[in-house]
C-alpha cells in the first residue's frame, strides 16, 4: 500500500515541504530510502525499526521503498525519523490515514520510541502554514516554539505510542498553545546593569549614543579598565525587541538548535562574543549546507569582538560586507542562502601589545615597530565602518574607591528608546531601522545643520582629512546625538561630539588611515 506523509526541510532560513512517500510490497523484508538522503537520514532506518519494536509493536513485514520528494534536493538530519515511522505504520493500517493529508510530522526517534527535539521547527512551521497545512506534530520540547505560529494546531509528541493513539483517535492530545502577547509583554530582565561599572562616564555616554543610533563602536584602553564590562552591559541599555524582530531572531536560533524548551521566544537582544580564534566561516556562517554564523546570531543585537587585533586578518575583512549590507549571502556548490545580519559591532582593544601605551601610571614597554604591527592588523576600510571610537582609561585609586555608580541601565534605556522612537518615525516610509543604517538620500534629507555646525564640520573635514564615508558617519552620529537631545536640527555641540569620536580613531590609528 502506498502512503504519503508530509514533513519539511530547511534551506537557509526558509522551510520547504518534503513528501515522505512510503510504498510497501510483499517479498523479502528490507527498506530502502531514496531521494538524496544523507547519512543521518539513511540511519533513520535502524532508529525507526528499533523505536517501533521497543514501543511494543511488531515491525510490519515486507519491503519498504521510502521516497523523500522532491527528489533533487539533498535531505539532511534526523527530522524524517517520525514521518518515516508514521508512513511505515500507516502503510500497514496500524495508523489511520485520516490526519495525514493536512499534517506535517517532524521529529527524531530515540531507540526506545521517545521523540527527540530537532532544529529549525519554527521556520518550518511558518512555511507549512503558508502552504495550507493545518496541523503540525512536533517533538514535545519544540512545541512551544512551534506554537508561535498561530495558524497551525500544534500536537506535541512525547513518544511513538502516544502519537499512534492520537492519530487513531483513541487518545486525546491537547494542542499546545502559547500566549505570544504574554511572553512578549514581560520586560526582559538583565542580570547585569550599567551602574555596576564605576566611573567611565565618557564611555557610558558613547555607549548610549551607540545604542541609540545603532552605531558601531571601538573601545581602546589598557587591560582591566572595564572595556569588556561595558560591552557586556550594552544590550541592557538597548530598547527591547519588537515582536517582528523577536520572531526573526528566534528563527535564527531555531535553525541553529539554540532554543531551549523553556526559552521559546527570544525577547532579549542577542549578545555574541566569539573568541578571537574563531574562523571566518564561524563568523559569517557556512558549511556544506550553510548555517548562520556569529554575525547572524547577533542579528538585532551586539557582536562583541574582544582583543580586536588578535582576530585573524581574514576574519576581520569578512566583516566588512555584512557591516554594510546588513545581511550575508553564502554560496556553496549545493545552494545559496541569505541570512540577515543587522548587528552592532562593538570592538575592544589595547592601545599596544603590552597594553600600557598612553597610560598615566604604567610605562609602555613596546618598541614602536611592535605597536605599528599591532595596529596594522586593522585595515583602513574596516575602521572606516566604525562610527564611534573612545578611549577607556584605567581608573585611578581614588576613583575606584569613591567614584559614584551613575545611572542605572533602565534610566538610560528610556532615553535610548525615545531616540529610537524618533528614528522610527523618521524612517517610517523605508526599511531603515536606525540612524547608522541611513542611505545617502536620507542623510541629505534628514541631517539639517545649523550654520555654526556646518562651519565646524567643514573645518573638521579640512583638518582631519576624513574620507567620504567618514564624513557621512560623522553626520549620522551627530544626528543620533541630536535625537538624544530632542533637537530637530543638528547643532554645533552635536557635531563637536561626533567629530570627537572620530578624532580619537584618527589619532590612534593615524598610521593606517
Amino acid at each position: 500500500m502506498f502512503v504519503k506523509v508530509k514533513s519539511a526541510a530547511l534551506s537557509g532560513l526558509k522551510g520547504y515541504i518534503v513528501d515522505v512517500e512510503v510504498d510497501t510490497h510483499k517479498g523479502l523484508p528490507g527498506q530502502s530510502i531514496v531521494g538524496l538522503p544523507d547519512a543521518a537520514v539513511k540511519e533513520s532506518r535502524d532508529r525507526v525499526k528499533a523505536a517501533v519494536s521497543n514501543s511494543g509493536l511488531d515491525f510490519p513485514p515486507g519491503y519498504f521503498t521510502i521516497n523523500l520528494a522532491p527528489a533533487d534536493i539533498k535531505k539532511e538530519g534526523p527530522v524524517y525519523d517520525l514521518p518515516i515511522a508514521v508512513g511505515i505504520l500507516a502503510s500497514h493500517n496500524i495508523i489511520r490515514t485520516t490526519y495525514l493529508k493536512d499534517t506535517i510530522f517532524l521529529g527524531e526517534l530515540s531507540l526506545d520510541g521517545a521523540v527527540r527535539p530537532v532544529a529549525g521547527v519554527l521556520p518550518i512551521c511558518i512555511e507549512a502554514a503558508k502552504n495550507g497545512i493545518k496541523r503540525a506534530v512536533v517533538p514535545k520540547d519544540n512545541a512551544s516554539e512551534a506554537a508561535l505560529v498561530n495558524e497551525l494546531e500544534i500536537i506535541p509528541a512525547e513518544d511513538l505510542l502516544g502519537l499512534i493513539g492520537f492519530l487513531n483517535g483513541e487518545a486525546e492530545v491537547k494542542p499546545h498553545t502559547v500566549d505570544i502577547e504574554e511572553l512578549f509583554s514581560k520586560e526582559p530582565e538583565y542580570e547585569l546593569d550599567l551602574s555596576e561599572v564605576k566611573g567611565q562616564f565618557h564611555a557610558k555616554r558613547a555607549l548610549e549614543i551607540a545604542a541609540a543610533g545603532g552605531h558601531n563602536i571601538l573601545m581602546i584602553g589598557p587591560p582591566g579598565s572595564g572595556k569588556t564590562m561595558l560591552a557586556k552591559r550594552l544590550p541592557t541599555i538597548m530598547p527591547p525587541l519588537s515582536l517582528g524582530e523577536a520572531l526573526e531572531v528566534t528563527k535564527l536560533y531555531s535553525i541553529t538548535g539554540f532554543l531551549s524548551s523553556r526559552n521559546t521566544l527570544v525577547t532579549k537582544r542577542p549578545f555574541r562574543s566569539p573568541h578571537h580564534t574563531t574562523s571566518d566561516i564561524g563568523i559569517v556562517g557556512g558549511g556544506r549546507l550553510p548555517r548562520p554564523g556569529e554575525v547572524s546570531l547577533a542579528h538585532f543585537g551586539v557582536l562583541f569582538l574582544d582583543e580586536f587585533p588578535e582576530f585573524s586578518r581574514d576574519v576581520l575583512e569578512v566583516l566588512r560586507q555584512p557591516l554594510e549590507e546588513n545581511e550575508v549571502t553564502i554560496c556553496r556548490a549545493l545552494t545559496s542562502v541569505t541570512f540577515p545580519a543587522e548587528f552592532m559591532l562593538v570592538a575592544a582593544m589595547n592601545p599596544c601589545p603590552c597594553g600600557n601605551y598612553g597610560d598615566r601610571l604604567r610605562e609602555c614597554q613596546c618598541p614602536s615597530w611592535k605597536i605599528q604591527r599591532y595596529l596594522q592588523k586593522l585595515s583602513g576600510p574596516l575602521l572606516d565602518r566604525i562610527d564611534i571610537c573612545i578611549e577607556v582609561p584605567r581608573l585611578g585609586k581614588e576613583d575606584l574607591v569613591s567614584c559614584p555608580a551613575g545611572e542605572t541601565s533602565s534610566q538610560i534605556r528610556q532615553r535610548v528608546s525615545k531616540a529610537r522612537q524618533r528614528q522610527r518615525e523618521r524612517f517610517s516610509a523605508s526599511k531603515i531601522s536606525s540612524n547608522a543604517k541611513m542611505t545617502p538620500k536620507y542623510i541629505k534629507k534628514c541631517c539639517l545643520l545649523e550654520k555654526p555646525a556646518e562651519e565646524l564640520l567643514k573645518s573638521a573635514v579640512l583638518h582631519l582629512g576624513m574620507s567620504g564615508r567618514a564624513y557621512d558617519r560623522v553626520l549620522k552620529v551627530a544626528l543620533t546625538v541630536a535625537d538624544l537631545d530632542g533637537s530637530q536640527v543638528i547643532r554645533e555641540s552635536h557635531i563637536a561630539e561626533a567629530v570627537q569620536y572620530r578624532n580619537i580613531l584618527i589619532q590612534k590609528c593615524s598610521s593606517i588611515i
Partner: protein
Amino acid sequence: MSIQSKRLGDEGEQIAYDHLLSLGWQMIERNFHSSQGEVDIIAKDGQFLVFVEVKNYSFASFGTPVGAVRAAKKKSIIHAASTYLHKKNISNVYCRFDVISIYRNFEGKMNIELYKDAFQMN
C-alpha cells in the same frame, strides 16, 4: 569444512527441524542451494515464508547467534532466498529471515533459541 563441523551442522539442522515442526511450522525445504548461497531450512510460519539459518555450537558461546551471522553469510542467505522466490515464482508472500541457535551447556542440556526477523535486506 572438517568432517567434525559438518556433522555438528547436520545434527543441529535436524534438531532445529524437529523443533520448528513441533512449533507447528509447515516445513517446505532443507538445504536449498543457489549459485552463490544456501539456506538451511525453508518453512512456513502462518502467513510468513521463513528462511532459517541454523547455528549449532558445541559450547556456550558469548554474544547472540544473530551477531554470528555476518555480512557475507547474510548475503549468501539473501541470494539463496531471492533465487528460491524467483524459481518458484512466488511474489505475493511476506518473507522473514530467522536464526535458530542450538548449544549444549556443561551439563549436556540442550538449549534452543529462535530469533524471529533476525535481519533484513539492506
